[in-house]
């Protein structure tokens, strides 16, 4: 069975410092990995995804994530945090060839990022 873990309920970081939001996954076969962000009282916004190829994926708003197959991780990073990055972040996974007409994402429990000025 597929699963995603986000081990930290909350991450606190000072503005201007680098940030990391952790995600590990469990999938048999090749994983497809996604990061979404949800600002207060808003829907989910797609940030980036890993399908295949370069392990370092760059996404929206200066975010990037590194796929590490040996550690089954897909941590989200940003070199310099902004107060406006404060939001709820979800990691999600599905896998190559999963199902038929399904595209079912398995979400992590979410990590609240708080960036202090």
């Amino acid at each position, binding site marked *: 069975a597929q699963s995603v873990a986000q081990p930290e309920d909350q991450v606190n970081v000072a503005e201007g410092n680098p940030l990391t939001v952790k995600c590990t996954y469990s999938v048999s076969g090749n994983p497809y990995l*996604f990061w979404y962000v949800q600002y207060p009282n808003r829907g*989910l916004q797609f940030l980036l995804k890993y399908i295949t190829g370069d392990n370092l994926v760059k996404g929206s708003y200066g975010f990037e994530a590194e796929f590490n197959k040996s550690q089954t991780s897909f941590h989200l990073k940003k070199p310099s945090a902004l107060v406006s990055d404060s939001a*709820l972040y979800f990691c999600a996974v599905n896998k190559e060839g999963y199902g038929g*007409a*399904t*595209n*079912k994402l398995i979400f992590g*429990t979410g990590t609240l990022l708080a960036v202090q000025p």
Partner: protein
Amino acid sequence: DTEVTQTPKHLVMGMTNKKSLKCEQHMGHRAMYWYKQKAKKPPELMFVYSYEKLSINESVPSRFSPECPNSSLLNLHLHALQPEDSALYLCASSPLAVSGNTIYFGEGSWLTVV
């Protein structure tokens, strides 16, 4: 900005009411989804439509009835809901209902059942 549009943004309904949530996308996507989200929790998949046909129903109670009139529109008909059904309902779409396709979400409809 999202290109998945949901109406209404807020809805309050009584337990005996019938109401509908509406969703529209003009990205030419052939897969559309309904998710339910409780506060600070991950979204839970309810339904998947692929080429206007229902392909997944995640054992959702029959008081929720989805409808896909055409490739751009998705409705969720609500009847005899319970207070525990109060949540954010998210519509989403992707080019195809195939793993690896990016799912794009709307802003959601906040539903309160009284």
